[in-house]
């Protein structure tokens, strides 16, 4: 990791590679992969307090790969990924979470999921009141509250 607490170029390359392994682009669902430049930029811009653990995870990944992750063949890369997920502990979990939390707020992804592109506040959401006659059997069954002496 560089002195200014940012990811190195190699770490950024590996982050992009592993992000695409977690979530590849899909023509079927018309969504980018997590290696998409805008999503990657979001990750790097918002790493914040997660930077140290993500860097540690990427270093662990690099050790397992023995070389740039992108240069490994697919089978070897999958094996490294599997080992990374099982042995990476909190650092690996943080890296994966960072990838997921940035991916699932991207406009293109949310649109594909049918979700609105906005913060919950101030519009909120409408909730159906529902059929309260469902409570009738509970009322009919009744019951008694256990009394204290």
């Amino acid at each position, binding site marked *: 990791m560089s002195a200014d607490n940012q990811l190195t170029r190699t770490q950024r390359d590996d982050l992009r590679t592993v992000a695409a392994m977690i979530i590849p682009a899909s023509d079927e669902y018309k969504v980018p992969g997590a290696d998409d430049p805008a999503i990657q930029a979001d990750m790097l811009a918002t790493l914040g307090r997660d930077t140290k653990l993500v860097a540690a995870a990427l270093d662990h990944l690099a050790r397992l790969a023995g070389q740039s992750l992108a240069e490994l063949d697919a089978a070897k890369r999958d094996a490294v990924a599997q080992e990374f997920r099982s042995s990476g502990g909190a650092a690996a*979990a943080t890296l994966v979470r960072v990838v997921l939390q940035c991916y*699932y707020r991207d406009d293109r992804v949310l649109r594909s999921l049918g979700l609105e592109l906005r*913060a919950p*506040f101030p519009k909120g959401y409408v909730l159906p009141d529902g059929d309260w006659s469902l409570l009738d059997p509970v009322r009919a069954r009744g019951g008694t509250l*256990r009394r204290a002496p």
Partner: protein
Amino acid sequence: MKDPVDVLIIGAGASGAAVAWSLAETKMHILCLEQGGWMNPAEYPSTGRDWEAKFYGEWSSSPNVRGRREDYPINDTNSPIKVVNYNAVGGSTVMYTAHWPRLHPSDFKVKTLDGVADDWPIDYDVLTPFFEENDRMMGTSGLSGDPLSPLTHPPMPQQPLGLSGAIFGKAMNKLGWHWWPSDTTVATMDYEGRARCINLGHCTPACAQGAKSSTDITYWPHAVRAGVELRTHCRVREITTDENGMASGVVYYDKDGVEQFQPAHVVIIACNGVGTPRLLLNSASARFPNGLANSSGLVGKNLMFHPYAQIYGYVKEPTDSNRAPPTCLWSKEWYDTDLSRGFVRGYGVQFVRGAGPVFEAVVSEQRGILPWGEDHHRVFRKLNGHRLGFSAICEDLPEEHNCVTLDPVLKDSHGIPAPKINYTISENSQKMMDHALARGREVLEAAGATDLCINSPIPWGGWHLLGTARMGTDPKRSVVNEWGRTHDVKNLFIVDGSVFVTSGGVNPTSTIQAIALYVADQMKQRLTNLFD
């Protein structure tokens, strides 16, 4: 030297706010010291597109993860359940689910009824008027008439059933089991200056709409208008005593980190079941070598958490996901003791409506049900917006080895020793949790759910911090008497969840606040002989 105040309250959360408001009518000089500050709803997570991500950082429910300057660290390595809380004006009512059951009448008499633990020195009927008063102040919503819960009179109607509630209701009816819309502190109509709920989503990390009741927007505005002084960003280090063994005031660090002494005639502690024993133990002196008010040796002991046993799954039809308050229904089907189940006491259930997309992705990936690679998209679409959860709140019985002590090394940002938790889940609680998971599985399967996942205990589920300065009439077996005054120091009171004798199987905040109002009422009635 500052002028002494009549009453000094430590902590501006659920109980501190209630006791401050109630005592304000005495026109005494009341001062509350709070280590956190006032909240700014414009900064709450639901105002931003990154609302879910914030829950993993500055809006985490864990003070250890959050690490704000207002927080203190907690060594909970020796506990499978981690402490969660919030430190600000409003305390953990800023960050809670707003689920609002009360302890049942039978919960106060567990020794008599079931032969375990101890009876409380007070009963449900003593607290009834204070439950009612508190419900009006906090502003509750619900449906009166639940046959298996104490009778309540919520001033607002219940939350909508929604998609998730209807699925659960049908499943519970199929099995013939009790369910009922929860009492909550979510405003379902405009109420006392609070706007009604507009379903911003998961309410736990604070409500930008102000529909969820927290004491910074309920009790505190009233208390401040009535003359209570609230001093924020003031962290109390210790309570001092005089030559007569009475509390003389507190030493605290002000917002600039400068050590101050505030003299007081009466001190009330409202710091929750971890903060309160920490403060008492940090207030040891030559006269009180084992910590203040600790002649019984029970300060910090009998910690009760409520282990949460959770099981969740996925149905084909859409659920409410993140587009509603997280809890909507409860069940008391397994609340009372039935020894044929293999354990004593019981549990309440809260049904969980769903989860947002980021939470769903993160948790499901960790569980191994959301794969990496090409199939990720298909599986995610099957999971997202289809989750239903069943969470059992299991009654923890008091055990002295479950305790809060002072960590010999860990300190907060002011150098004050931090609390250390030692806690194990008892055999009785484990059997209860296993039973709950089996029932939850039946409910979810009746709802048509698949891909069931167990989260038991919920590791970051230590919301309910109870029992560490228990109430009782015997000074050898309790820390405070039946009206909240410590046995050892006659002008020192405790009003938070520490005083619980047993925990019941429900979220405790309603009962904590009712006790705070009751203690305040006792103090007002005894003003002329308060220290006798």
